[in-house]
Structures are given as structure tokens and as C-alpha cells.
């Protein structure tokens, strides 16, 4: 290598060096320019509940075998109905938690008696696969207090979310990693 240095740089080499410098400046400068003016910080994927139609794609298009999308429950919006249409079949045989009455295919919703006539419904996230069936039931009859969110303990945050690519209502958005959930606001 040493002798390489001492040699006078031939014209070719000089031109290449110039081009190289230009390239380096271009790449570095370009990247810097693109970052500088924008809002800093990472972005993560999330579902905008106001656009979600609970089509069920979240359950099957996630790159994870068990989707990162799960159902969440906004308790302040919940009516605590005895006959919860997010928990029971549209035409329940009986208002018990027996399999034949329950809506959720994976049995991920837990029903708890609070006081007459109110019942509390919570989501067992281990069982939920994010199919959105309960969301449909709750939205159709009730207050739509059940809705879908991407759980960021599971979400791999792919460069482009493959559910987002398959979302029929363009409900997937990039949100700041600092506030990664789009909770339904109760004012």
C-alpha cells in the first residue's frame, strides 16, 4: 500500500476522487436534508378506530402467526349491558357464558357481574386474535366501546405493515412511537 501513496495520482484517479467526493456529499447531504426539517423521532403503526371497519384482515394479514392486533375495551364508553352484543351471539340461547351463547370464536372476552343489571367485559389478550367479530357486534347495536388496536409488545413494526397494505379502509396510520396507541377519547 505504502508505494501506492507515493505514486503521483494519475488524471483518471483524480477525476474519480472528485466524483467520489461529490457522491459522498450528495448522499450525506441528501440524508441530512431529508431528516432536518421533519418531526424527529420514530413512527410506529396503529389503527385509527374511527376508520376501522373490523373486516377481519388484521387477524390474517399480520406477519405474525398470532396477529399483533387485539381487541381493546374503552370502559368509559361501555354500557355494561346484561345482553352485550359484543359478547353474545346475535340471537343468544340464554344469557350465560356457555359456549353456545358466546360470540367470540376464541373465547377471549371475560364477563363479570358487577351489580344488577350491570356486567363488566374485559378482553383476555392471550386469547384474542383480533378478528374484530365482537367489534362488529358492539358497533352495530351498542356504543362501539370495543375496538381494535395494534399491541406494541407484539407488533414488529415492519417498515410497511402488511396489514396496512391489505386494509380496505386505509385505517392504518404511522403514529409517534412516544404515543403509540389511538385510544377512543371520552370527553
Amino acid at each position, binding site marked *: 500500500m505504502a508505494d501506492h501513496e507515493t505514486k503521483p495520482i494519475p488524471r483518471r484517479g483524480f477525476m474519480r476522487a472528485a466524483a467520489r467526493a461529490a457522491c459522498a456529499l450528495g448522499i450525506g447531504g441528501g440524508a441530512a436534508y431529508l431528516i432536518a426539517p421533519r418531526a424527529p423521532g420514530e413512527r410506529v403503526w396503529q389503527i385509527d378506530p374511527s376508520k376501522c371497519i373490523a373486516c377481519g384482515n388484521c*387477524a390474517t*394479514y399480520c406477519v405474525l402467526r398470532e396477529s399483533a392486533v387485539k381487541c381493546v375495551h374503552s370502559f368509559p364508553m361501555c354500557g355494561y349491558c346484561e345482553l352485550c352484543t359484543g359478547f353474545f351471539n*346475535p340471537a343468544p340461547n340464554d344469557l350465560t357464558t356457555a359456549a353456545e351463547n358466546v360470540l367470540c370464536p376464541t373465547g377471549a372476552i371475560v364477563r363479570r357481574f358487577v351489580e344488577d343489571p350491570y356486567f363488566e367485559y374485559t378482553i383476555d389478550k392471550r386469547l384474542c386474535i383480533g378478528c374484530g367479530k365482537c367489534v*362488529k357486534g358492539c*358497533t*352495530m*347495536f351498542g356504543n362501539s366501546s370495543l375496538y381494535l388496536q395494534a399491541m406494541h409488545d407484539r407488533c414488529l413494526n415492519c417498515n410497511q405493515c402488511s396489514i396496512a397494505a391489505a386494509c380496505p379502509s386505509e385505517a392504518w396510520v404511522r403514529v409517534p412511537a412516544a404515543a403509540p396507541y389511538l385510544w377512543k377519547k371520552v370527553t
Partner: protein
Amino acid sequence: MMARGAFSARAAAGIVVFVAIVAAVIAIALHDPTGERGNRLGKDFAYETKDLRPIAPALLRYAERAAFDTRLAAPRALAVGADDRLYVAGDRAIAMFTPHGTPAGSRALDGEPTCLAVTSGGVSYVGMSNHVEVFDAAGTRTAAWAPHGEQSYVTAVVAIPEGIVVADAGERIVLLYGKDGTLVRPIGGRDPERNVPGFVVPSPFLDAAMGKDGLLRVTNPGRHKVEAYSLEGDLCLAWGAAKATVEGFCGCCNPVHIAVLPDGAIVTSEKGLVTVKVCEPDGALRCVVAGPDRLGENALGYDVAVDSKGRIIVLDPVAKKVRVFEPAARRGSPRSETGSTNG
């Protein structure tokens, strides 16, 4: 020998590579990143209501006679005033129409109306989410009553000779006011002594209407009942049951709106599988006005009203239209003749 070995190895490699390439191409062809194929979920995962939608033709004894645009972005409530003029509250205004749907002016409000009632004198009482405002026939505000409680959410106002009945869904109570806005008495609050169960109101729908028998009809959506109270606040009668079929009230909390026909029958409106039907004063199902196939499936709550001719008027918040239904048996179309005697 060596060469042949090398050659055969090359050939084997070639075959493997070729097969792999074919496999790769097929795999790419099968890949569906844009959701064209939809969720490949099975039947158990579909929220299926189509078995519950159809209604026996024999029960459908009303026909939609007219429908007109409310010209409101979010119509909320409907009322019938003197000589059957129609009042629709929504956005931040009240729109008025002739009985046949010709626009007859509108009034601006300084808040989102949630319900309204109009007396024969043309005085209108408008529920403004947490309180009631009173407007005279000319449309000038004459009074704004104080909210009943800090959770107050007024969802129905009824003008009766004895005063004004206000249904407060937020406080789960019905309030009888004098015309001047003085509270006479609350009605229907939970009270074990008088065995009044109290209203269960999971969603912002609590409606009341004055029955022809002098009893105040109030919905109790959470219990899937319509209850009849005397103006003294005694619970005289309650009927209704949770059923997905047409005999009962569907979903989590229904009915959401009621009205009373000239002959005293009760018109009920359900959300979810949106259904408007007519029940006898004692709750027996008389007939169906329109079912989900006609009105749709949603939780918005279709307000209903009845005019002096017995026309049933439905406010469709999705189409943003007022839809007018009349008994189908009036003219001799074979379909309606299959219905029964009345209407």
C-alpha cells in the same frame, strides 16, 4: 470419469435450481399483499345477522309513501307540530317542513339539539344535550331551563296538557316540569318501595310519549321494556322482552324511540337491526312498519313520530331523510290484502 462426475453433478444442480425457480415464481404469483382475497376467516368469524333480517310479509302492513331530504348534515330528532307540520332538529338548527315535505324555513340554534317537542300553539321545547330551551311560535328564545344534574343528557321532550315531560338519559330519570320550567316531580327513578326498577340506559337513548290512556310511556332500553307511568310516578304497566326475533326487542338496549298512534297503539323504533313496529298498548305485536332490509343496520337510532292522520314518520339519520309510512291496506294491492283486518 472425473469429467463425467463433474458433469452429472452440474446437471443435478441445474435441475434443482430450475425446480426451485419454478417454485419461487409460483409462490410469488400466489402472494396477495393487497388483501384482494379478503380475510380468509371461516364462518365462525363472520358476524352474521341475515337470518334475523327478513320479516314475514304478512306482518309488513305499512308502505313507504314518501321520503324527503332533511337538508341537515346530522339530523337528530323529529317532532310533529300543529296541523302536522314536521320539525327536524340537527346540526345547530331546526328545519321545518310541510306535511308533504316542502321546506318551510329553519331556525338556527346556538348548540347541538338532541330532541324537541312542539305544542299545538307552535311553542317548541328543544333539548340542548344537557338542558331544555323554549322558543315561541316566532322562534325567539323565551327561556333556557337549568340542567337537572351535572350528568344530564336530555334525549326526549314531550309536551302534554299538564306540562312538559323531559327524559334525561344521563341522569337515568324522567322529569315532569310545569310549562314555566318548574320541576313538578321526577318519574321512574329507582325506588324499591314503589317497586320502580329504574331506567337502564346503556346508550344515549331514553324516550317518552303520552299514551291515549293518560299513562306516560317511557322506554327502558337496558331492560328491553316499554313502561307506563302515571304522572304521579306509579309504574302501572311494563312490557317487552329481549329477543332477536321480531316479537321482542333486539340487541343490547332497545327500543330507543317510541310514539303513540291516534288509536293508542305504540310505535317502537329499535337500533341495531333497525326496525319500526306497532304494538298494542299492552305490548302485543300488531304489525311491522319497516325492518332492517328497508332501514338498515346501525346503532344511530331512528326517531319516530306520528301525525294526526296516523302516518308514521321516521327520521333516517343515515340517508338524512324523513321517511313517511302509511298503512298499505288502504288501496287494493294484492300484497297488502294478505295482511289482516286493521290498518
